[in-house]
């Protein structure tokens, strides 16, 4: 399974080569891998529904880290969404993006990388593996929403999405660590089999829920999802309807069998889920942009799924899994329909679209088919799921059961209403709005839409298939002695009963609400939102910025001597005190053990003293170089040629870098204007710092009591690692991870230096005029050379 995930990522890296030749071919190639994944998953369905298919690759056994994957019923459903809908959306993208589109190569590669990350997320059986893929999807979403970064709306939406989801992700990481430590394992299957308990676990669950709620755009974090609609429609259809936003729901579904009976788990999930469902549905009723209407619909549906999968209980779990599948199969085609409408008419505004249904009956039909599933009309999959959802809570009864059931009914009424509003807004002939002449959408746009929508119909009619999946997931919930719950199966016809009545009320109520849409609009305008989640987000971000400005203003005073003094005093106070208390001067300390050390040491000391007296910057730089070479010489005397070589080379390079910088600075140091008192204080601090370091060097190196165990081991093992030079063996073998880390730091440092220096270049003198302000395009050219 790791191979499948890696194949996605590698393929994504290679995709730009294909898109350089043909944009469409790139999307076609990209569709192959998700398609293959779907086939692989379906071929293993029998095993997945039974014991589950496992695969583990240890990648750092010493740290106990491994990639462990597991395919089970829930994973299979998510793969149908991620890979199945993914393949369809790649096909759709081939028609959506133009042949010359500049966004297409980037989007194709990122979408495929996202598909790989999402696949890893749903297959992961290790909480840390899951977390890594979780954040990768957030990053992919950021890049896909941001697109080229040329539009303000894209940038803002991308930033909001990434801030909210990564905030949740980080808190989730804390929760994961707490949970993993409490359980003694990070394997999800083991944690679910034997859930730990205690105060630490309670905290862990709250933190994990925070991650799940932000990712799935639940109250009060939901505004990022409608804002993310700034992305191209295929991206929205894939990430923000079918797969990524389901990650939070998925995580809840994954852990619910273990924790759903705890109030700390189900109360926030059910309360916030219901609230989100109602709020999302209500907000969808006032949207005039078809895409944002669907986005609020998604928010609402995600709340619905949260309630079902977080409440616990066998029937609710079955309903949740069914609706999880159904939602992907109706929301993705609806988004594709919006994309098609946007593409052929150039607008998504309800007020500007009219009479499209008569001109494009096929498109209206496919939208209607998907919409029926969304509203919960038989014989579509949405109906099957909703029926089970009502049954779950009506059967449970009691205060909780009835409250939730009535809440779901209200949410379903709203769902039916915004479905009607969507279909009416997109296709109905509206009086006073002129119908536009439109061209027919291409096959690449319509065929994937039809396949996805017909999937909802086929699975609705063929509900036993879904029942097998849902049953496979719901076995994790012990039904106890409840015969009805234990024997419940999905079906189109359960006989006359309350659930059917609820379904009917939902559809009829929704239609009635839509019929009175002008009255609804009036209520909308009257209801001013005193508390807005979007404003809350903005206030938090603005507050953080203000705080950052204040802290930076306090800490960064802009005086180099002050910084140095703070650093030195800290060193003097903390390690200095420790040294005074615990340090012991070694008895066998010799002044020197080789005569050549004397001239070298003398050279370093003289250069250091001269450095203090130097007036010209260039002299100072040369003297610093002399000190460095002198120390390099001392290294040679002490038998460290590797160290000395590196020291000489770095010293030389530093000299060159200094010379480059010096040409921007005055030749002489500024006249010292500070009073003699300040100067003496500076000299005292600097001198004390230097002496402390010298003493620390002697004391610490003399503090070793036994010969180091590891270095002897290194020397013994070095030939085995193919190196007779033990330094090299340490660098590239024994401590290779450190080396990789260090060169990464170098990369960051180089990038930072280049950006800082080049960023200040644009206000240089040019043609006798000093230009300042933002860089011009030709300036950028020069930098990128």
């Amino acid at each position, binding site marked *: 399974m790791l191979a499948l995930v890696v194949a996605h990522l590698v393929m994504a890296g290679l995709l730009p080569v294909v898109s350089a030749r043909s944009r469409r071919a790139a999307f076609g190639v990209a569709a192959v891998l998700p398609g293959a994944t779907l086939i692989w998953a379906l071929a293993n369905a029998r095993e997945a529904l039974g014991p589950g298919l496992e695969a583990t690759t240890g990648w750092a056994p010493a740290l106990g880290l491994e990639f462990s994957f597991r395919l089970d019923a829930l994973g299979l459903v998510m793969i149908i969404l991620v890979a199945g809908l993914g393949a369809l959306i790649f096909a759709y993208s081939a028609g959506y993006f133009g042949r010359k589109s500049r966004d297409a190569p980037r989007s194709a590669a990122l979408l495929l990388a996202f598909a790989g990350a999402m696949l890893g997320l749903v297959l992961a059986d290790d909480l840390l593996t899951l977390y890594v893929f979780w954040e990768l999807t957030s990053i992919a979403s950021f890049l896909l929403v941001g697109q080229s970064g040329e539009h303000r709306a894209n940038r803002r939406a991308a930033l909001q999405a990434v801030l909210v989801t990564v905030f949740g992700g980080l808190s989730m990481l804390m929760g994961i660590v707490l949970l993993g430590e409490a359980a003694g394992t990070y394997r999800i299957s083991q944690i679910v089999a034997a859930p730990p308990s205690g105060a630490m676990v309670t905290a862990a669950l709250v933190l994990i829920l925070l991650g799940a709620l932000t990712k799935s755009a639940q109250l009060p974090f939901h505004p990022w999802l409608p804002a993310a609609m700034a992305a191209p429609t295929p991206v929205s259809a894939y990430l923000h309807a079918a797969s990524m936003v389901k990650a939070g729901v998925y995580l809840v579904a994954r852990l619910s069998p273990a924790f759903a009976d705890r109030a700390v788990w189900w109360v926030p999930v059910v309360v916030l889920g219901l609230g989100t469902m109602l709020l999302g549905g209500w907000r969808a009723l006032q949207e005039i942009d078809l895409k944002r209407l669907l986005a609020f619909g998604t928010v609402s549906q995600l709340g619905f799924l949260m309630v079902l999968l977080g409440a616990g209980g066998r029937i609710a779990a079955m309903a949740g899994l069914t609706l999880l599948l159904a939602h992907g199969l109706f929301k993705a085609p609806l988004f594709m329909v919006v994309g098609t409408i946007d593409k052929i008419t150039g607008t998504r505004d309800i007020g500007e679209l009219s009479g499209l249904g008569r001109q494009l009956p096929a498109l209206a039909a496919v939208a209607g088919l998907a919409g029926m599933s969304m509203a919960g009309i038989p014989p579509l999959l949405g109906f099957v799921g909703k029926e089970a959802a009502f049954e779950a809570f009506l059967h449970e009864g009691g205060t909780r059961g009835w409250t939730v059931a009535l809440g779901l009914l209200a949410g379903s009424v709203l769902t039916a209403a915004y479905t009607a509003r969507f279909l009416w807004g997109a296709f109905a002939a509206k009086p006073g709005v002129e119908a536009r002449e439109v061209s027919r959408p291409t096959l690449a746009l319509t065929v994937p839409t039809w396949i996805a929508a017909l999937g909802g119909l086929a699975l609705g009619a063929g509900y036993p298939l879904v029942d097998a999946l849902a049953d496979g997931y719901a076995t994790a919930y012990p039904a106890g002695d409840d015969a009805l719950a234990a024997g419940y199966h999905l079906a189109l016809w359960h006989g006359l009963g309350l659930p059917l009545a609820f379904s009917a009320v939902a559809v009829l109520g929704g239609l009635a609400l839509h019929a009175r849409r002008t009255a609804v609009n009036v209520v909308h305008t009257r209801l001013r939102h005193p508390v807005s989640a979007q404003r809350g987000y903005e206030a938090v971000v603005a507050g953080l910025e203000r705080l950052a400005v204040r802290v930076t203003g306090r800490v960064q005073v802009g005086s180099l001597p002050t910084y140095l003094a703070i650093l030195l005093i800290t060193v003097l106070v903390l390690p200095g005190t420790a040294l005074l208390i615990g340090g012991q001067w070694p008895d066998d300390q010799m002044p020197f053990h080789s005569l050549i050390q004397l001239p070298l040491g003398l050279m370093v000391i003289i250069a250091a003293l001269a450095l203090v007296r130097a007036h010209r910057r260039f002299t100072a730089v040369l003297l610093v170089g002399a000190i460095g070479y002198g120390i390099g010489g001392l290294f040679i005397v002490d038998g460290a040629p590797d160290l000395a070589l590196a020291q000489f080379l770095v010293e030389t390079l530093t000299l060159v870098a200094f010379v480059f910088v010096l040409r921007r600075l005055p030749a002489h140091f500024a006249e010292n204007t500070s009073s003699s008192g300040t100067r003496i204080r500076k000299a005292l601090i600097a001198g004390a710092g230097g002496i402390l370091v010298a003493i620390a060097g002697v004391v610490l190196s003399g503090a070793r009591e036994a010969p180091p165990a590891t270095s002897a081991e290194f020397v013994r093992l070095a030939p085995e690692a193919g190196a007779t030079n033990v330094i090299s063996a340490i660098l590239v073998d024994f401590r*290779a991870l450190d080396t990789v880390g260090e060169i990464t730091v*170098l*990369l960051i440092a*180089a990038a930072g230096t280049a950006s800082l*220096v080049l960023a200040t270049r644009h206000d*240089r003198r040019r043609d*006798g005029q000093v230009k300042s302000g933002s860089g011009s395009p030709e300036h950028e050219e020069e930098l990128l050379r």
Partner: protein
Amino acid sequence: MTASPNTPERVPWKQWDEPSGQWMLPGEHPPTAERTLLLEVVVRILFPTVLVFSLYLLIVGHYGPGGGFSGGLVAGLAFVLRYIAGGGTDLGARVGSRIRLRPPMLVGVGLSIAVLTALAPTAFGAPVLASAKLSVAVPVVGDVDLVTSLFLDVGVYLLIIGVVLDLLRSLGSGIERDAQGAGERS
């Protein structure tokens, strides 16, 4: 290059030893740079030698002083020499006719090689960063031991060269223009 050295009475003294020929590969010069024959000839001779020496350091690192870090620094210093003699126009090398190798790319390639070397053992079921010794029989030379961790060193080598070139590119950017602006050239 307007005046020829054969007519010294017309050439300002600062340009007396300016070479008129192309001494360094690829031979392009910023028209504003001052040229000195001595430096260019020395660089022309030293540059390839130092590069070869840096490769030697890279490979010998397993057996003596050297390694990717030192080798990369030596190669970087060769480029520094070249930069001082020839200016900054040739900091990005061309590979073939289409791919242009810029310093940041070199840094990225270096890190990629290092990370891929680190991850590669997992494909063979070994833990991350494990190394293996491969013995290859080369005719004439005899058995050659190749340690896979050499690739990590190659990554470090490339990255260091890239860092040095990037430093030159950024810190040295616009050096000719500044010289002009400051009136250092007539």
